């Protein structure tokens, strides 16, 4: 899907949102749900940032770190990929206090989801680094760059381009996972919807709006990643005919 199609879809989903919102029966729910959507967006953005940082550190540590670091990275990746995100959140929120660690619900949401998605991201980072042709490493060695210099200056900039599409998927996964933070008392979009549904029983209206809102946010993510991908690819192979 190109940038143009994505843009059109984003606009369409907003228009659809406006149309839905303009019906009398829907209008009353919009302000409350928008508040919830704002919480969802904040968790998503912060969670994504943490995920990227964790993924780069864990991915590189797993490939090139000294053995204790490598071991730590493997443990992190396997634990957070191999257990349910919901259980991880509960653990951070309900279990840690037993050991005297009390975290704000928002902190738990960002840390929990960021670490979870970061574990998947670490494998994305590793795959993208391995996909850079071996000749690039060899040229770096021939020019006497150290391994870290080669990684930073030569390999990572190229790997970054290959990482963007899978990261788009992971970011959307993270957005959708935010719905579970409603279970640790955060008033996100899903939580607000549930709450309104219980008091008004207007299930159709409420969950239709919620659906459109999630779609709109995920389309924005898709669009941003497309733009990023296009920019990165242009920087990598200016003028290449492919």
């Amino acid at each position: 899907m190109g940038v143009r199609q994505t843009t059109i879809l984003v606009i369409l989903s907003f228009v659809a949102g406006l149309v839905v919102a303009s019906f009398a029966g829907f209008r009353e729910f919009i302000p409350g749900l928008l508040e919830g959507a704002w919480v969802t967006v904040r968790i998503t953005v912060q969670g994504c940032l943490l995920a990227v940082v964790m993924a780069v550190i864990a991915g590189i540590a797993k490939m090139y770190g000294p053995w204790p670091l490598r071991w730590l990275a493997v443990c992190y990746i396997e634990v957070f990929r191999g257990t349910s995100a919901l259980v991880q959140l509960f653990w951070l929120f309900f279990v840690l206090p037993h050991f005297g660690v009390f975290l704000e619900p928002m902190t738990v949401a960002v840390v929990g989801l960021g670490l979870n998605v970061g574990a998947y991201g670490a494998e994305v980072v590793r795959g993208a680094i391995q996909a850079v042709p071996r000749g690039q490493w060899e040229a770096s060695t021939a020019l006497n760059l150290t391994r870290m210099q080669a990684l930073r200056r030569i390999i990572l900039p190229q790997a970054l381009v290959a990482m963007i599409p899978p990261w788009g998927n992971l970011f959307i996964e993270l957005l959708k996972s935010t719905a579970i933070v409603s279970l640790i008392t955060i008033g996100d979009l899903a939580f607000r919807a549930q709450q309104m549904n219980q008091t008004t029983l207007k299930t159709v209206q409420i969950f239709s709006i919620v659906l459109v809102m999630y779609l709109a946010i995920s389309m924005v993510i898709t669009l941003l990643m497309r733009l990023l991908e296009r920019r990165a690819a242009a920087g990598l192979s200016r003028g290449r005919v492919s």
Partner: protein
Amino acid sequence: MEASTSERPAAAEGGVAPMVRFDRVTKRYGALTVLDDLQLDIAAGEKVAIIGPSGSGKTTVLRMLMTLERIDGGVIWVDGEPMTHMPGPGAAGSGSLVPASQRHLRQVRGKVGMVFQHFNLFPHMSALKNCMEAPVTVLGLSRKEARERGAELLSMVGLGDKLDHFPGQLSGGQQQRVAIARALAMRPKVMLFDEVTSALDPELVGEVLTVIRKLGAEHDLTMIMVTHQMGFAKEFADRVCFFYQGRIAETGAPAELFGNPENERTRQFLSAVLEAG
């Protein structure tokens, strides 16, 4: 790689110590011995062409000298220093050598530069940036100095007007010339050329060979090239080595080796190549 003993290359009768010495070097991949007890001296400023059928170990020779392959036996010397090894602790002067540390490798590797069959330019950097990266990062040149050096070398290879072009915007021949400039920017004493024209369209081979010829004429670089261009090897090289099954089957001046090969394998190889070309 085991500890080894190997004598520092002494000045030969002519009075010049070799720039590169392979001293009983062996390389194996599993059970397959790619290079068997290789003994080869290359003098400073000498131009050596390595020819031979595929799988004869000729590219491995260059890759070992660039430290892209570990060796399984013997010692490689560069400019009077052991490259693959370094003097063992407390053994100064005794000739006892231990495998080189990363630091030692980096120090000696700086004397060698390499140009690859598939160019291996950095695709996210312009031609000039390709030439500036290592001088700035490794040699610690200022960006200004590195830019001047890079621009000068790119003009030398005839690409003075393509400084800001990216590899994707250049033809294969132009990319390979950038790669030559990039290697030269590190001021190596030994330049390795690994089938540098094999990936090029025939009409682009000439421009790359012209640059190499110019390098040979204007600089006192030691040059070692693996090539399939027999015409070029004959005209350019001081010495030709014919590799066969991991050993040097025949070596000599181009006129002799091409004109009157002594070894049966050399004769077969040359006639097969001439027939094809």
